[in-house]
């Protein structure tokens, strides 16, 4: 096995599932001859043909709507929205149709589609190319929201997302596309879409995060260990439906929680996790629950984005803060 970048793992999963199931159809802008702006679909046009790897007109609402129509007809569309800052026109389709087709027809029609979208900051991209809007979608009943942070998890979770029976929004952290590398075995084995990943076991603080900030959280875990603090790190990875059981068990053990995400803090998904901890694990807490997140500001352009993104020093400050309560 060779080290694979996260973007390669995405491509491996797409190729794998396309070779298994001819109903899998890729849709998106520049995904064909160009191989996607991040090259996630590179070579797939040549391998699977233009009927199954389809460059669409620049029409995000129609891309999502096409996927709904295809899925209702028993196909398995996987659509790429070039950057998640361009996903807003899809939200009508995701909210009013994809997420509720099963409910509103009592299961007669279903919507097994996947919308993949590169997400997040840290690559010095132009305006509208660096946002994190997972919280807009975690509030939509009937959608699964997945946000992997490593090549192996991207591979296994994407396989399960495409093979599964429900609509999935699959965010891919752009910052990790080429920096995260791992041995990925093209085994065809999916990862379950119903549990968090505990990346580091510990006893003093539960660190909860997802997407690109998993990398900063891992570094903070090492740094905290040097200071004698034992961090348990949970990569949520599947935000919706949430496996809160894993988080509850960890916080019950450590008594402290720090939640980290890149999206703006107010109304972010971290607020939901903090509320669940308050509701279901309050009596285990030894310290207030802390959030380290983006500020409630418009995502800054590249010159300032490093000051917006949660980094290891900010996470460490929160860890020291919760450790000051004994």
């Amino acid at each position: 096995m060779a080290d694979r970048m996260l973007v390669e793992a995405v491509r491996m999963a797409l190729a794998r599932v396309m070779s298994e199931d001819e109903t899998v159809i890729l849709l998106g802008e520049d995904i064909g001859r160009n191989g996607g702006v991040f090259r996630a679909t590179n070579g797939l046009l040549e391998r699977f043909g233009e009927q199954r790897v389809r460059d669409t007109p620049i029409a995000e609402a129609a891309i999502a709507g096409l996927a709904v129509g295809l899925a209702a007809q028993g196909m398995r569309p996987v659509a790429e929205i070039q950057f998640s800052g361009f996903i807003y026109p899809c939200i009508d389709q995701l909210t009013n149709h994809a997420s509720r087709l099963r409910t509103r027809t009592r299961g007669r029609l279903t919507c097994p589609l996947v919308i993949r979208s590169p997400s997040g900051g840290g690559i010095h991209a132009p305006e509208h190319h660096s946002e994190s809007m997972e919280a807009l979608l975690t509030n939509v009943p009937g959608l699964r929201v997945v946000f992997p942070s490593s090549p192996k998890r991207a591979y296994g979770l994407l396989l399960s997302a495409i093979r599964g029976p429900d609509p999935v929004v699959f965010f891919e952290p752009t910052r990790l596309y080429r920096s995260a590398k791992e041995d990925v075995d093209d085994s065809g084995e999916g990862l379950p879409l119903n549990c968090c990943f505990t990346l580091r076991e510990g006893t003093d603080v539960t660190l909860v995060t997802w997407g690109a900030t998993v990398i900063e959280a891992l570094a903070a875990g090492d740094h905290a260990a040097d200071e004698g603090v034992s961090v348990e790190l949970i990569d949520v990875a599947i935000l919706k439906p949430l496996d809160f059981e894993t988080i509850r068990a960890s916080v019950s053990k450590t008594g402290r929680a720090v939640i980290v995400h890149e999206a703006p803090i107010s109304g972010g998904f971290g607020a939901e996790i903090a509320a669940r901890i308050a509701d279901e694990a309050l009596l285990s807490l030894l310290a207030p629950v802390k959030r380290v997140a983006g500020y409630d500001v418009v995502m800054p352009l590249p010159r300032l984005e490093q000051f917006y993104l949660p980094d290891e020093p900010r996470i460490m400050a929160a860890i020291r803060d919760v450790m000051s309560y004994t």
Partner: protein
Amino acid sequence: MISQGASTPLRFIAPDGQAERELPVFADRAALISFYRAMLLTRIFDEKAVALQRTGRLGTFASSLGQEAVSVGLASAMRKEDVLLPSFREQGAMLWRGVSPVELFLYWGGDERGSDFAGPRGDFPICIPVASHAPHAAGVALAMKLRGEKRAAVAVMGDGATSKGDFYEAINISGVWRLPAVFVISNNQWAISVPVGRQTAAATLAVKAMAAGIRSARVDGNDVIAVHNAVGEAIDRAISDQGPTLVECVTYRLGDHTTVDDSSRYRSDQEVSENWPSEPVARLRQYLTAHEGWTKSDEENLIAECHNLVGEAADRYAAIDPLEPKDMFEMTFASLPRDLEEQRNQLS
């Protein structure tokens, strides 16, 4: 018969019931009577639904009074294997396709089971957000084309829908990929309170097809033969890989937008009165009476049959118990996640 955005809507039968041109071959006595029956059934269904709403036994409802020929004309041109994607005023089409009046009452009465059609299993449920089902038709049509099937997707929406980006995105993509899709516009002149002249500066809605490079037709939407003919031709083209068509059907909404609307706030009684002589049901009845020997007793028998059918459906609807409260959870995902299981348990 399809013309590129012609300004005069094509029709076969004039408002007074006289044929203006030779009828198409499909328009034999049996077919015309079946269209007539379906339009009358739709009208009587609408009357009953409004009555149920007024007496607190149904939710908000959108009557199709005056537009029955569009609905019946388009559905009667479809084959069983085609897929209908209706908006919220197409009960005539849905009934023709085999959706039961009980299911329609259930839907408008506030029960999701009303969209679990026992008949046309592949048809889409009613689309409420305007034009957002237009791209679904392109997706359905793409699935059909990829599988090499001779089937078509038929979406129907109102004049206001043509102002939306979804509509343009859908016809554009269908044109580029030559998809077997038919987009029917039921131009009833009013999008709630805004008349079509304030929706667009375009001379007709059919001309909007030109920007997408697809074919269009413009027909008198109160002539069921003209609607059936245009949609039938469009389906024939679709299934022989000649691409999508936009069919504008010019009609008039004789009733309020819905049971919670009062159209006297934005249009005059005189305007509505002036449109009654063009309505589709009397038009076809006059033709049948003059040319197909339709008698007073035929008419009375049919009215009684439709009233019986709708009345029985209303009784059956009234006897159906609501779903259990916990049933709201069951269809959110294919299987119930633990989180939702906990929420469901809180409900009891």
